[in-house]
């Protein structure tokens, strides 16, 4: 009977610890259906809504407010990318929360922390794997989204990938989603309850922005500018708009800093709290 329990080949070590942890987190991620569904939703919603919004804009062009059409002409790339990503990003928010808070709601966190009792390496590996996956899928979404949007807008507001800032914006869309993925994992780790964390992040990303714009004067404008999703998504806009107080990389830097603070808080709490 000892034979069945003997270590056999299991006694041999395969790969370094860090590589093992990354593989482990990749296995966790790919083995859940919610991952596949969320990513399909990200691609479909983003491309679909860009097609819908640019299509409607072109179809209604002559009835539109001249100020609106002027905005589209000034930066058609922003329209092509922004229309779809505004909603598509929610899939990243939800999946990021599920990836972390789902460990708590299912109890998997106990198995995970028994395997990695120092905890921080587990969170780090999970964050790296998820952010990389979202960056790749984000780019795979951004390119067709841009070319589709640009093709639809072509007759009214032509834009090319060679135009200033456009290449950076298309790559930036994936970068923004990757950092948003980290942001969502941190929220999930802090809140630990799936429903609460999803409500929280959707509030932060979607609801707070229009609310902040209702605030009077420059306070509202400043708060709006520094909101994570507002600052972060500047990198996905080819040109700096008249109302943008920050440049694309500045905005992205603000978003990265805010995310870093959340990750730090999540790490400290993950280490301190009983699991």
């Amino acid at each position, binding site marked *: 009977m000892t034979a069945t*329990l003997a270590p*056999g080949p*299991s006694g041999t070590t395969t790969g370094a610890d860090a590589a093992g942890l990354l593989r482990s987190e990749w296995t*966790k991620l790919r*083995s859940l259906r919610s991952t596949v569904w969320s990513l399909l939703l990200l691609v479909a919603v983003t491309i679909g809504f860009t097609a819908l919004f640019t299509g409607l804009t072109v179809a209604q062009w002559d009835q539109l407010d001249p100020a609106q059409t002027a905005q589209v002409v000034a930066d058609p790339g922003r329209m092509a990318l922004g229309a779809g990503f505004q909603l598509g990003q929610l899939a990243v928010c939800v999946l990021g929360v599920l990836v972390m808070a789902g460990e708590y709601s299912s109890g*998997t966190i106990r198995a995970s922390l028994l395997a990695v009792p120092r905890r921080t390496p*587990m969170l780090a590996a999970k964050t790296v794997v998820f952010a990389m996956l979202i960056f790749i899928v984000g780019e795979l979404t951004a390119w067709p989204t841009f070319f589709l949007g640009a093709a639809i807008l072509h007759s009214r507001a032509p834009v090319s990938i060679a135009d200033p800032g456009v290449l950076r914006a298309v790559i930036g869309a994936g970068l923004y989603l990757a950092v948003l993925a980290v942001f969502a994992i941190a929220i999930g780790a802090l809140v630990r309850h799936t429903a609460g964390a999803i409500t929280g992040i959707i509030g932060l990303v979607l609801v707070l922005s229009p609310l902040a714009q209702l605030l009077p004067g420059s306070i509202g404008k400043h708060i709006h500018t520094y909101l994570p999703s507002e600052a972060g998504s500047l990198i996905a806009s080819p040109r700096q708009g008249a109302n943008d107080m920050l440049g694309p990389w500045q905005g992205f830097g603000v978003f990265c800093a805010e995310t870093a603070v959340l990750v730090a808080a999540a790490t400290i709490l993950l280490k301190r709290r009983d*699991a």
Partner: protein
Amino acid sequence: MIEVRELTKSYGAKVVIDRLSFTVLPGHVTGFLGPNGSGKSTTMRVIVGLDHPDSGTATIGGKRYAELSRPLRTVGALLDAESAHPGRSAFNHLLYLAQSQGLPRSRVDEVLELVGLKDVGRDRTGTFSLGMRQRLGIAVALLGDPQVLILDEPINGLDPDGIFWIRNLMRQLAGEGRTVLVSSHLMSEMAVTADSLIVIGRGQLIADCSTSEFIGRSSHRSVLVRSSDPVRLRTALDAAGAQVVPGEDGAVSVRALDARHIGEIAARDGIVLWELSPQLASLEDAFREMTHGHRDFGSPTGPTADAKRQPETHVVAAAGAGAGATR
């Protein structure tokens, strides 16, 4: 070897583990007993680093759990059946754990076969029965072929075959020189499985001894006696200070006097004994007697931790000056 020293843990104002110390040695199955809410699970969670103690230490082979590199190769733990994502297959659950420990994929198939889940390994664990989830938890514990096993209520939800299997598995693992700490609320199970016991109540140590010693320590020991003249025997035994309780078919149950003395008294008075058999208290009796006053159930609401702790001093003293005494 597992060493717990002066471990204390509170949740808010409630003291769950109170200066608990014990050692679990390799080569034995050590049963971990205590009433509900006595702190067994919390103690196990602290040993494997899921919960942080307020003070005191818990070490495995001299190291804190968090200091172990690739801990699943040293310690296998089954804490509760609900620690796998219902949407993930058993295979993938084990695979991600194996990868985090640098264990090969083939080991996953090995443990799935070992616990009898080979055929359902690719099914999502959400479709599993409690018994199957329990087997998966045992597969996780065995994954890294660890020298130390910590199993919290492992037979929960298992069918008789499963119970027989896990009982033999634990004995086999201990026989190979591994350290096995297993908690259970089923006394009968512990009586046949555990070589030694650690008994706690309200987070404090009540007993730390062999199973037979624990049973023997109980005052419930009695002697069953059948004789030719129960009435005269009873009078004689009463006179000797024994407690005699009439039983069925003219038999009597005698306490506070051992078989030798009963036999001598009968011989002196010329009474023929047909049966004279010492009855050992069941583990359950011993457990209930010793944890009396340690139960959290039904205790009046509101007493402070100090007030609660008061009566236990007597119980520990009554349990004898053996290894059980904590102070």
